């Protein structure tokens, strides 16, 4: 947290009240409480990073309430964070999670593409591409500790990691873009195919399916389930297994497998931006988004 570690009890209690943390909140196990924890001075509060010096495991907590929607600021912070960790020689692994349980990440901030100029949308999309390239292409062991709902962009982040642990229960995950008349870009579709196989990916993408954790596990969309309060611990345990493998061999193997898709996006970056730009200027898409926003307001 960007808040000072030495914050007194009164401030702590107020903080907990504001963010509605229950008795089993993962926050209680925050690494800064241990002797090995070290705070990163990230430039913003929307992405909180802490690293365990001994193990080299960094935990990256998305902190953009209420639902960690990926707006420009988030995309920039996430990318900076991933790049900083990439360049930190003592860092070996990254666990991506949400500061506030029950929602991992609700996806792209719709307001960034609603009634915005094509140029604005293009710039926003490029930031998404760059963030994804830095995560999907990371040399680190990357784990998604999915402690809540994870539609669309949340699923994008999860798929970009090496391994996915999700909270048991009624939480859902999936690429539901088509429900908003949007089309997931080719590189995102490919990661879905790579994880759950072509047939399931084709169907999931066409109908914009959102799966409960049980079904996601069955499909292989996530790798393990755990009670929501244990997701972080289970992720840390899993990471330790992965870190037994000599880093270089593991990283080279990962890159060999991911290089074709990374290269393809880099090569087709502008074309991909153009596709998204054209798509969002479609009036039917803007109408779908409008209806969606009105529905949210009504709730």
């Amino acid at each position, binding site marked *: 947290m960007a808040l000072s570690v030495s914050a007194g009890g009164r401030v702590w209690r107020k903080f907990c009240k504001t963010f509605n943390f229950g008795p089993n909140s993962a926050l209680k196990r925050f690494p800064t409480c241990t002797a090995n924890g070290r705070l990163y001075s990230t430039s913003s509060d929307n992405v909180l990073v802490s690293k365990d010096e001994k193990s080299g495991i960094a935990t990256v907590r998305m902190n953009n309430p209420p639902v960690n929607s990926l707006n420009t600021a988030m995309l920039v912070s996430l990318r900076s964070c991933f790049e900083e960790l990439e360049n930190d020689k003592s860092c070996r692994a990254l666990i991506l999670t949400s500061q506030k349980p029950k929602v991992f990440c609700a996806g792209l901030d719709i307001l960034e593409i609603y009634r915005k100029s094509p140029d604005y949308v293009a710039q926003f999309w490029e930031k998404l591409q760059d963030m994804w390239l830095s995560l999907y292409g990371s040399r680190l062991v990357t784990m998604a500790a999915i402690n809540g709902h994870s539609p669309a962009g949340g699923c994008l982040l999860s798929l970009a990691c090496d391994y996915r642990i999700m909270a048991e229960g009624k939480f859902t995950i999936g690429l539901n873009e088509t429900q908003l008349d949007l089309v*997931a870009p080719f590189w995102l579709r490919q990661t879905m195919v790579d994880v759950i196989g072509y047939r399931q990916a*084709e169907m999931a993408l*066409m109908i*914009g399916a959102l799966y409960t954790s049980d079904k996601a596990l069955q499909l292989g969309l996530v790798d393990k389930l755990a009670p929501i309060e244990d997701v972080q611990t289970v992720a840390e345990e899993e990471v330790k297994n992965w870190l037994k493998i000599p880093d270089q061999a593991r990283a080279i193997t990962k890159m060999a497998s991911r290089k074709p898709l990374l290269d393809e996006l880099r090569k087709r970056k502008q074309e991909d931006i153009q596709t998204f730009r054209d798509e969002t200027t479609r009036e039917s898409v803007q109408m779908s988004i409008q209806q969606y926003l009105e529905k949210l307001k009504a709730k």
Partner: protein
Amino acid sequence: MAAPMRGMSVLRQAFQGLVRPSGGQVCRQVQHRCYSTPGHVQVDMNSETGVATVRLNRPPVNSLNLDVLTELSIALEKLETDKSCKAMVLASAAPGIFSAGLDILEMYQSTPERCVAFWRALQDAWLNLYGSRLVTMAAIEGHSPAGGCLLAMSCDYRVMAEGKFQIGLNETKLGIVAPFWFTDVMLNTIGHRETEKALQLGALYSAQQALSIGLVDKVVPLAEVMPTVEGELKNWLQIPAAARVITKTSMRKAVLDRLRSQKEKDAQFFADFINRDSVQKSLGMYIASLQKKKN
């Protein structure tokens, strides 16, 4: 028992004349349009739901010959351009069979010209089906080997009747080889390992086995196949069409383009391959064994 020889253009003209979108009989309810052809592909379009049911109808086993494939292509083309049509259910008018696949008699002791015409008709029917903008569902209410399996796999979703019916690409059992695009579709349905095994063995799977490898998506009692398909369609049709279609087309493009870019070569390859002595011998033996079973 070989089918009579006909020129392609004559056949097409004949069917163009007969298949009128708003003509034909009015079946059952006012909002249905039926295409009354004397031929082998019945189309029943429900204008209210936008769902067209296309039933193969060439008793006894819906084997796919030049006529059937041509009719199927034309039916699919018409639905593709019919703005009121949003989905298509592929089914059979014959009980106990979805489709037995390609008509062996099109391949046995035929002429090279006829072989090429036949293969082109198959290619076109498949390109129309696999590349369709419609939501496509296969209601597999009977056996579905070889070409039948291809048609089923080319749909977006498959519901099969539980019980004794079988489905699979069993070409190698007859001494022939499934073309590369059949393989492509199977790979995209059940993955590499299962496809390699299935094709080499010419495996035919029961509905439950097919479900377990992902060859079909749902298995229900025979009487529930159509209602299940209709229920599934309702969900799919709630998705904004534009996004769904772009997603489908983008994902299937590579496989479709691979055939489109070499149609002539593929047709010629088939004609040459099928006319090899060894292949003709295998086909002859297979036909003889079928005759024996009959007698």
